[in-house]
Each structure stands twice: as C-alpha cells, then as structure tokens.
C-alpha cells in the first residue's frame, strides 16, 4: 500500500492550495475537487513537479434536474490515478485549456468540447475532432437528452466535393481511402518537392458514437459493443471493461478464468504485433516480409480460432469470467505454435537489424527523443522505443500479471528500427509468459455469477493493449445500464507524434512513420467514438503545426510561411 499511497500523498501535498475537497474511493485513486478557475494552477503544479501524465479527460452530464456537469481530469503515474473533479454549470460550462502546460491535452479537450458543449477557453484549434463536418451546431451527443433518432431523421448527407488545396502549397492527401491506410482517416501532407513541410489529420471517419450507445444498452450487451471498438485489440477492450464492471460489482473472478484472460490477451498481442510488423514492412515496400510475417501470423490465428471459435473478435470474456476452457490438447497446440513462432521471431529480428536495404528505410528515420515522447504523451511500444518506461502490465499489474509477470522491454534509439525491435522483443517475452501460464494454469471454475444490475459507483480500469495503455472510466447509477463509459484508446495519444515527426521527412517515409506508431483509428475513433473522448488529433491546426515544426526542427526553410 505504501507504494500506492506515497505518490498520492505527494500529490495531496502539491495540490493543498487549490484542493476544495478530496476523497479516496479506491486505494489507488484520489479524487480532488478543484474549482474551474484553479484548474490551470493545479495542473501546473503537477507538471512542474513531474507528477504523472494526463491520461484522459472525462465529461459527465448530471442532467437537467441537477443542472450541473463535471469534467474529470485523470492523471496517472504507476498504479495510481489522480482525478481532478471540476464542477461546471450546465448553462454556461467553461474551462480553460491546459494546452500551454500539457500540449497533449488538446485532443482530449477538443473531444470534451464537441461531445459535451463545454467551452474550452484558449484552445488553439476548436474545430471538430471526431464529429462529421456537417454536424449541426449546438448538438452535443453525450449530453443527456440527446436523441439520435431525431438527428437521423433530418440527416442529409453533404455530397459537395470539398477542396482541400491550400494556396501556394502542394498538398498530398492520404485517406480516407488510400492503400497505405487500411482504415479511413484523412491526412494531408504539404510537400515541397519530396519533403514534407506540413501535416494535418482529420479523424472521425470511423467515429460511430459508441460511448453514447453504451448508455442505451445493458451491461451484458455493452461487452460486445466495446469489444468491437477495435478488431485488432478486441479482447483487451472487453477485458478492461470486465475488470471495471467486476470491480464495481465487487465480484472476484475465479483464478482459472483470469489466467485464460491473460493467455488470450497475450496471444492477441502476438497477432497484433505480427500484423503490424507485416503492414509496416508493406508500407516500406518490402512485400516479401509482409507475406512471410502474415503467413506466420496464421499460426496464432489458428490457435485463437481453435480455442475461441472466432479468429478476430474472440468473445472470450463474459462478465464474471470467461466463456471457454483450455484443454490439454489445446495447450499442446499452443506450445508447438509458440516454438515455431520463437524461431521465426529470431529470424525477423535478424532481418530488421541487419538487412541493409530495409535499414535504409528505418534506421534514423522518424526519431523521437525521450523528451518528445514524454511531451507528446505517447504510450505503449511507441513510447518504449524512445526509452519511456510505460507499461501497465508492469507498473500496475491487473488481473493475473502479478502471478505471471512480464518484463518491460525498452529501447532508447527512438527511430523506426527501435520500434520494430521493441515489438519483436516484446513478442519473445510474451511467448515466455504464455508458456508460463500454460505450465501453471490454476484449476477451478470459469465464471462466477454476476448481478444484472451493478452497484452505483465509479471506477477506472487501465490495461496494456498491444498499442499502449487503454483507459476506461465506468460509472454506474445502480441500474442495468451504465451511466457513462469513457474509453481512451492509445492511438489517440500516439497520433500527435505522427504529425510532428512527419515534418521534414521525405514523402516516402510517411507511410512507414505512420505505421511505426501502429495506429488503430478504429480504436481511436471508435473508441473515441465510443466515448466522447478519445480521439485524436483531428488536427493540429496550422499554427500548432508550425509551432511544432519550428520547435523541433529549428529549420525555417522547412516550414513555409502561409
């Protein structure tokens, strides 16, 4: 407990001057009530003392009767979460932007603004992050009383062609349909010859409105809705949700079920990383590597299909446990699959670190320093490739990671090569952990009974998805439907780095840099979509871009005046 308490204690001391009230709902959480005018100073105090990072901003609408809203700023470090609760009036909700202190806050704030209609003052770019361009003014989907049927009725798609050409600049659009993107997002890169001088992103093509939808479905139905935020990391989304709901309900999941959850999560990591590995190689124009890595990926897909019955959305979780057992026969299949993969992974490691032609495309490209990675709020393997030690499985072990620990893999180079190496090394560790689980799998039940109505309360659930930390905020009001679920997927945080890193590179490097952070827009938007929060950089405005371009490259030639 002392390890958990000391950072929170420290935070309590730091925040003393502004703290109106506080409570500790769970041992690893501290909720601090802050007045909206004190927000900047309080966040500044954390930032100057390097206390944690901003993980997410959640909006809460308490409804017309109470007439109030709340913005929750979640800061995390290690296993603890510190939450600023800022109360706002429903008629005139205003907060000030944390952009000056925490540049990474802008995405979260823009999401807050468009989803709740909370005005964020001084935000550099107030445009839509996730919602469509033709979204009606003054309609905020996550506020209480928003009716999607009403909206759908008078929806007329805007079919006019939008021109995105900038005067005097040559703009290369990538997306929403583009061979480099398997998902619809829209990037625009301004190029001078082959050199990229500016970049912007439009998210929201995959924004489906999942967070709102969760409030209309039962706890059970939401499990599958949230699983489909992302088809690549489906299991981890469902797991994060289950962990949170079980925590709220006060239910303990049988050990065997927890072991199976971790097993599937790690198998999913193999599938996700190999998928990414192939796609990144394809972006770099190395199709043979793509074909081979996807061939080998079929091994793990077969395993997943055999144990769960589905190749992608395994539906392994139910609330209170898991659906299926692992038989001894299946354990053998998994072991032999892992042996094959181990051998192949060593081979690929050799390829990415030795192949001259491939290294030309990865070594020293898209370098992100530790400071940048920290400042841009990157997560997961992208951050770890730059030497930032952030891995929830190690820092705040959930589920069964205490019993089957996994070491953290960190590289320091920060370039594309390091991102390849980090992920491959991670897979080797993952394989060891899976073997460990198979060898020492506890006996017992697969699930416990779950109530259909969940006790009122709030909880936070953080897990390590293949792409980085996944953050869930779940609030129940005691009914059979959640009051609010907020999802912040890792890609939201990582997108910022793409836009920043792209400037000054060759156009040809862009797809690889983009692939390098392993973006998952469905997570992003979906998640984002899922909840009001997560998405990303719809864009950096040109001002921001320029600012960053100047800051990071100090090369005025590369940044064209408008």
């Amino acid at each position: 407990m002392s390890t958990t308490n000391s950072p929170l204690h420290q935070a309590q001391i730091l925040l003393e001057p502004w703290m109106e009230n506080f409570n500790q709902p769970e041992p690893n959480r501290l909720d601090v009530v802050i007045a909206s005018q004190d927000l900047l100073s309080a966040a500044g105090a954390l930032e100057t003392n390097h206390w944690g990072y901003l993980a997410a901003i959640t909006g809460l609408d308490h409804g017309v009767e109470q007439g109030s809203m709340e913005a929750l700023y979640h800061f995390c470090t290690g296993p603890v979460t510190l939450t600023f609760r800022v109360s706002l009036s429903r008629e005139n909700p205003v907060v000030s932007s944390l952009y000056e202190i925490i540049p990474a806050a802008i995405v979260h704030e823009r999401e807050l603004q468009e989803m709740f209609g909370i005005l964020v003052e001084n935000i550099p770019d107030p445009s839509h992050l996730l919602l469509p361009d033709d979204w009606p003014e003054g309609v905020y989907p996550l506020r209480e009383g928003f009716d999607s049927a009403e909206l759908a009725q008078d929806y007329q798609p805007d079919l006019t062609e939008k021109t995105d050409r900038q005067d005097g600049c040559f703009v290369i659009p990538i997306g929403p349909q583009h061979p480099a993107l398997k998902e619809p997002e829209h990037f625009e890169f301004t190029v001078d010859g082959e050199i990229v001088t500016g970049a912007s992103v439009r998210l929201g093509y995959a924004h489906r409105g999942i967070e709102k939808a969760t409030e209309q479905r039962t706890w059970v139905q939401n499990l599958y809705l949230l699983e489909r935020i992302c088809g690549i990391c489906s299991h981890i989304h469902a797991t994060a949700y289950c962990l949170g709901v079980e925590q709220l309900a006060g239910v303990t999941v049988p050990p065997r079920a927890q072991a199976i959850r971790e097993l599937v999560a790690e198998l999913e990591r193999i599938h996700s990383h190999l998928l990414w590995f192939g796609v990144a190689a394809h972006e770099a124009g190395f199709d043979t590597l793509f074909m081979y890595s996807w061939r080998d990926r079929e091994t793990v897909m077969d395993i997943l299909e055999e144990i769960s019955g589905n190749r992608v959305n395994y539906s392994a979780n139910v609330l209170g446990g898991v659906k299926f057992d692992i038989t001894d026969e299946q354990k053998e299949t998994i072991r032999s699959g892992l042996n094959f993969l181990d051998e192949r992974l060593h081979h690929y490691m050799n390829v990415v670190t030795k192949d001259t032609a491939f290294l030309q495309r990865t070594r020293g490209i898209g370098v992100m320093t530790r400071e940048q990675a920290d400042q841009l709020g990157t997560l997961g393997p992208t951050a770890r490739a730059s030497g930032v030690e952030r891995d929830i499985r190690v820092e705040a072990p959930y589920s069964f990671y205490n019993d089957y620990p996994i070491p953290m893999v960190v590289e320091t180079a920060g370039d594309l090569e390091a991102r390849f190496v980090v992920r491959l090394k991670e897979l080797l560790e993952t394989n060891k952990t899976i073997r460990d689980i198979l060898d020492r799998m506890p006996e017992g039940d697969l699930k416990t009974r779950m109530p259909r109505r969940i006790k009122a309360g709030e909880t936070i659930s953080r897990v390590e998805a293949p792409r980085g930390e996944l953050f869930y905020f779940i609030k129940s009001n005691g009914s059979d439907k959640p009051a609010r679920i907020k999802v912040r997927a890792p890609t939201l945080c990582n997108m910022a780095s793409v836009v920043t890193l792209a400037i000054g590179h060759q156009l040809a490097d862009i797809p690889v840099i983009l692939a390098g952070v392993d973006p998952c827009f469905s997570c992003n938007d979906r998640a984002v979509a899922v909840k009001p929060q997560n998405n990303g950089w719809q864009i950096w405005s040109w001002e921001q871009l320029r600012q960053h371009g100047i800051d990071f490259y100090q090369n005025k030639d590369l940044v064209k005046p408008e």
Partner: protein
Amino acid sequence: MREIVALLFFPGGLFIMAAGLAYEWVDRKLLARMQNRLGPRWFQPLADTVKLLIKEEIVPEDVHAAIFTLLPIFALTGPLTAALYIPLAGFEPAYSFSGDLIVTIYLLSLLTLCTGLAGANTLDRFSLVGATRTLTQMFAYEAPFLLSLLGPAIVTGSWQISEIAAYTNGSWLAFSQPIGFLVALIGLIGKLEMPPFDAPEAETEIVAGALTEYSGRGLAFFHLGKTTELVLGLSLIAAFYLGGVTTPLAFFAKTLALLFILVGMKALVARLRIDQTVGLWWRYVAMLALAQWLVVILWRGVAG
C-alpha cells in the same frame, strides 16, 4: 508480305505482346512462389488485359482529352517498334541498319516519357508526384543503362544491333565486362520501375503513381507496353552479355534466367526512396559504368 508479317505477327505485334504476357505470368508466378504462395493461373495476364480493354474508359475532367487518349497508344508503339530491331526467339532482327542501337534505346524510353507525360497531364496529385518521380528516375538510370549497352558496341566497333549480336555470339561478355552486365541488369529494373526501384508507383505513398487516373484501355496499353519492354530488355541484355540468342532454346533459357534474377531482387530488397534511388545511380552505378567504359576503350586501344 514479309513486312506485314513482321509488323503484325512476328516479331512485332502479336508475338511480342504474347511473349510479354507470358513473361509477366512467369514474373508473377515466380514472385508468388518465392513468397510461399500459389500465384496466378497461366492465363491471368491475358484475362487482365482483355478485361481492361473492354472496360469503360473514364476521361477525368480538367485534362486534355486528346493527349489523355493518345499517350497510351504512343507508349505502346515505342516498344512494339523497337521489337523490329531486336533479335527475338532465335531469329535475326526483322530490320537492321547502321546505328539502330541508338534508335532502339530511344524507342525504349518512349514508354517512360509517355508515362511521365500522362501523369503530368492529369491534375490528380498522386499522378503529379508519380510523374515527377518517373522522370526523375529516368534521368537517373538512363545514362548508366546507355553506357552499359555501349560497352559491347565498342568492343564490336559497330552501332548496329545485329552486328553486335553476331560478334558477341558465343563469347560471354558478362565475364569480361561484369560491371557493365550488372549495370545493364539493374538499369532494366529501373527502367521497368520494378521493385526495389518502384518508387514512381509506390502504392503505399502515391497509389498508382502517374497512371492513377487511367482506367480501361489506356491502362491496358501502358501495361502491355511495360511487359513488352520487359521481354525486349531481357533479350537485349542476353544477346549482348550472355553469349547470344541465336536459337530459340538459347533465347528462352537465357532471358528466363535473367528474369529469375530480376524477380529475386524484387522479392528480396525493400523499396528505395526516390532520393536514395537517384543517389545510388549517380554516385555509384554511373561511376562504375563509366569506369567499365574506360577500361573497354583502353583495352581496345591497347589491343587494336
């Protein structure tokens, strides 16, 4: 009569196009097998071409329609004409005159030029970048490729393909001029925009490069032009460097062996960026080709 046959059936026209499609199949099939896949069926390139020919052709707005329609035809004409001057399938070239080597090299460049123009003609941004890259790459590989083909010409003391082929018949210049041979081979990859030098049509960056806006017949013509050029290039290199292609057996064996090397490169090497491509060509390959050239000239001076 002989002219009509030469123009329409052999070696121009039908034969060279059929050979092109067959070689394209070998290319795709080999690549697939190297990637542990089954690969396309034998008639795949033919089906692709026929399908493209009967498909609707969309002429985008804002382009010069006549140029848009005519460019593919010119692009195909270049290699088809060049086929008349190159020894194919064990036969002498259909036509021959002093200096036809130079004409042939220009005819072979026509396809690249047309591709570049086609890209520049459409206002699509991917096409424009593709066109820039195509032309940039052309300036990079064209000089070393030319130099590498001139090596055998200097040894022979003639600018006529049939004479050079007759001279090199039986003597494997690949051993006496290894650098020239390598440069010619790599030059051919660059010319055909095959991986690893496929930056001009890098799918993940600029969709399909200069040809992004082409559909139907236009695309089919460019496509045919490229496969035809593949056969011609292979045949030329085999004739100059691999001891001649005077029998059908020698022709097919040697060109397919060369194709195998090409496909191997394709499978094993990651795509180079356009700046890396240009750097590689001018900094190393062109210098090497020049060195080889000088050696050949000096050697001739000393010996002759």
